[in-house]
């Protein structure tokens, strides 16, 4: 049990989940695809007026990102729960919060990050300006991990419950709304000619807070769910 053991365990879980995502590539792609569909179907409904689309853009993109993240949550622990590997993770001789952190990290890498990278491209289609695009990307980069971290608590709490889906959304949405407001707010501030600084620093603070507490809360919730 060397000092590097926890790190090795973190890396092991991270690698495992990334490998699994690679094997079930299209599961991951679903989130992304969903994000793209939601975003692109909207101009269809609204019509092609560019100035209008530009005003909508931050809101639409952030809402779509939020929905996509929320839908992806269901998969965070469900698979491991169903096949019994979650029990084994809980029984592994490592702090559970760490392993849960690894799972959340992997989850973000495969569902959050691609979304962050894709958002500017979609933003272009909405005719957003360059600095707004930059802020959009940055706000998503800070915001989506927070969504994942908060969501993990909800996912752990609702694991194996009847109707986990709705419960999860109900638990998680109220906590998501601040992230949405500051995230979309940052982009709108830039579009309106103001600096995004204030909004972004709140997002950053939320992220740090979530990083410190969410994995442990989720770990505790998991233990309870497994009983």
């Amino acid at each position, binding site marked *: 049990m060397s000092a590097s053991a926890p790190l090795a365990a973190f890396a*092991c*879980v991270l690698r495992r989940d990334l490998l699994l995502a690679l094997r*079930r590539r299209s599961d991951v792609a679903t989130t992304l695809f969903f994000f793209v569909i939601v975003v692109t179907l909207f101009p269809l409904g609204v019509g092609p007026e560019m100035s209008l689309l530009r005003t909508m853009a931050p809101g639409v993109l952030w809402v779509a990102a939020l929905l996509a993240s929320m839908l992806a949550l269901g998969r965070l622990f469900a*698979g491991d729960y169903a*096949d019994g590997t979650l029990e084994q993770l809980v029984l592994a*001789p490592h702090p559970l919060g760490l392993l849960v952190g690894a799972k959340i990290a992997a989850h973000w890498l495969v569902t959050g990050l691609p979304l962050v990278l894709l958002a500017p491209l979609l933003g272009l289609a909405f005719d957003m300006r360059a600095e707004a695009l930059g802020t959009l990307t940055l706000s998503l980069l800070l915001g989506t991990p927070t969504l994942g971290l908060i969501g993990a608590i909800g996912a752990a709490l609702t694991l194996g419950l009847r109707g986990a889906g709705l419960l999860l959304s109900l638990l998680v949405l109220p906590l998501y709304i601040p992230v949405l407001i500051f995230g979309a707010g940052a982009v709108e501030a830039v579009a309106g000619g103001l600096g995004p600084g204030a909004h972004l620093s709140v997002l950053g603070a939320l992220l740090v807070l979530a990083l410190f507490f969410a994995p442990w809360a989720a770990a505790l919730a998991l233990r309870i769910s497994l009983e």
Partner: protein
Amino acid sequence: MLVANGLECVRGGRRLFRAVGFELDPGTALEVQGANGSGKTSLLRMLCGLLAPAAGEILWNGADIRTLGEAYRGELVYLGHQNAIKDDLSALENLLVSETLAESAVTPAAARDSLARLGLAGCADLPTRVLSQGQKRRVALARLLFRERCRLWVLDEPFVALDQQAVREIAAIIAAQLGGGGIVVYTTHQEVAVAAPRRTELRLGR
């Protein structure tokens, strides 16, 4: 040494058992018996700390397992009804992951060897999704081969779905562990001879 005192189990408002206690010295096999639904699985999960007993305590070398946490989990192997293998990973990958997490010294070659020992040489690289019921169970059992150092094995129906030869193989592995001073708690509905220096039986249910 594993000691249980006055364990009580209540599921869904019904008491499955109460006042269950035992002391297991190194080298002891505890076979938990009982009809379907008598609470064997529940007891085994309690021993692992996955389920909190309604009353009673479980001590490992004199300390309550709840206070021991990781130190206890490092000594423990639990094999449940479920195989705890990922469908989309190959048998080899599954084994490597579980053993890395358990901090076993494991190399791909060693993992491959142990899979071969359990008759999985031909399917070590197939996704476990396509394996037969018994082959999946074998993949789950392969981790035992790397866990000699763990002093407590808790096995919930390890022999289920295995063919005769595999049953003998697993029984031999368990016997070896017992011979080396390990403690093994297991359940089975089949009649399997497990050689053990010391043996206790516990019958749950009326």
